[in-house]
């Protein structure tokens, strides 16, 4: 007779799911090309056109890393959950003794590893092609680590919550990409936020991307004097943590309320 104690633990199942998710992810060429490499390719193209001086390259690379991890977390994860719903993965898992939390641990592993790949690739392009200098000092890397983590977690949760709106993967591409692309323009990825009209800047400030990019700019800036170019005139690290933290909590609540195992249930 099976007993609860004998069933494998939530964490170990989550890690086992993470390993399986990664195996599936890296076997799909479109993931490698689109999700992992696209930001590096964009960096190469746009950087070649726009970057005229080293400091600009530093700031541009920071913004692209920010945009890139949002692409792997918000868009990539949202799409993968919709695909799991569409191809029967979620329905099958629902019929096994795997806890819901393990599924999410697996997704978090997937997003962290794929985001890390994407960021490393981007930094390699930035360093090799645009002579970008990597941040120096433990303090800056610590900032990098927490901005990366909070950015990935909050955007993953929002992506999963939004995925419940999408009926199919085709649908989801639109639901997820539209806000992502618009926000890139409002959040200082392609255009400096200081040149945007006040109203658009305010809209951008509600969403995580602006804060993630700002955090990364603080890490990649040649010196802290560049903070004056930010909309607020400073890096606002405390506020970054606060906004991303708030989105994480909001995302958790939204996922709890909106998550559906199948496209038809309830």
């Amino acid at each position, binding site marked *: 007779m*099976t*007993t*609860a104690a*004998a*069933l*494998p633990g939530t964490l170990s*199942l989550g890690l*086992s799911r993470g390993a*399986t998710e990664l*195996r*599936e992810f890296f*076997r*799909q060429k479109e993931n490698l090309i689109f999700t992992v490499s696209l930001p590096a390719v964009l960096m190469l193209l746009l950087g070649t056109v726009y970057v005229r001086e080293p400091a600009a390259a530093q700031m541009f690379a920071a913004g692209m890393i920010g945009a890139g991890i949002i692409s792997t977390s918000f868009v990539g994860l949202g799409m993968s959950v919709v695909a*799991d719903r569409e*191809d*029967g*993965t979620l*329905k*099958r898992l*629902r*019929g*096994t*003794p*795997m*806890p819901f939390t393990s599924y999410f641990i697996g997704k978090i592993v997937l997003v962290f590893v794929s985001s890390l790949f994407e960021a490393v690739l981007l930094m390699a392009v930035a360093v090799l092609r645009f002579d970008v200098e990597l941040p120096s000092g433990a303090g800056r890397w610590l900032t990098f680590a927490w901005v990366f983590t909070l950015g990935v977690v909050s955007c993953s949760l929002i992506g999963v919550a939004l995925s419940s709106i999408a009926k199919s993967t085709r649908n989801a591409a639109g639901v997820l990409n539209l806000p992502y692309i618009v926000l890139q323009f409002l959040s200082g990825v392609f255009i400096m936020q200081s040149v945007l009209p006040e109203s658009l800047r305010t809209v951008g400030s509600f969403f995580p991307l602006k804060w993630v990019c700002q955090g990364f700019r603080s890490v990649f800036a040649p010196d802290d004097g560049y903070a004056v170019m930010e909309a607020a005139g400073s890096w606002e690290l405390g506020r970054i943590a606060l906004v991303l933290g708030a989105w994480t909590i909001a995302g958790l609540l939204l996922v709890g309320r909106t998550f559906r*195992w*199948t496209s038809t*249930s*309830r």
Partner: protein
Amino acid sequence: MNAIRVRGLKKAYKGHQAVAGVDFDVARGEVFAVLGPNGAGKTTTVEVLEAYRDRDAGEVSVLGTDPARADRVWRSRLGIVPQSATDAANLTVTEAVRHYAGYYADPRDPDEVIDLVGLAEKAKSRAGTLSGGQRRRLDVALGIIGRPELVFLDEPTTGFDPEARRRFWDLVRSLAAEGTTILLTTHYLDEAEALADRVAVLAGGRVVAEGAPRTLGGRAHADATVRWLGEGGYREIRTPEPTKVIAELSRHGELAELVVTRPSLEDVYLELIA
């Protein structure tokens, strides 16, 4: 104790009564088939039993537990074989079966299960490259890897060629022989007749007949038809006593093309759902 007990099950979607009061029992170790046309309420009924869906009314007990209060231990005692999954396309058969084995306390040996479902030669192939029949066998492998006491098979042989269906039936029979309770939904009457100990026919959200395939709808007691080629063409007699009729007729010599038929399960079924 029964493996499944359903009483007065009801479920409506947006004003449409999909299931309108269904009752049946499935004994432990039994192979039970649920038949019915599309929209009869088969899928909804089964999904309530699998804890995929809430119900509006009625009592349901599956392996002694109300699916509305499903927990991990209960789920580990079920095996659910879905109808149209295309998941795990980038995993090999072995990888997928091993991964799912990891969810259970006491799984079967993955290689043995792959062998059992007849996929040993495809063990290293990606699931996405399997044919329809092979894919369904993988679904069965994933459904039985946890050593379930009760297996749900949802229209398992839809789209199979005849040979693949026969082999699938053998697989179901071998599971049943091990004592696994099986609830099967199907469109194919020959499948129900070949596999099921008992069947329930659903129509309009209700059970319109229930029993062994041989006796369903009074089939066993229905008149037989004796048919043969006489001098002026084919002749037919409907009779409750075909042996007597044939004995009578054969006194005059050989009866050309003699056949005795009873209503097929299909005849009975079509009458029931009409």
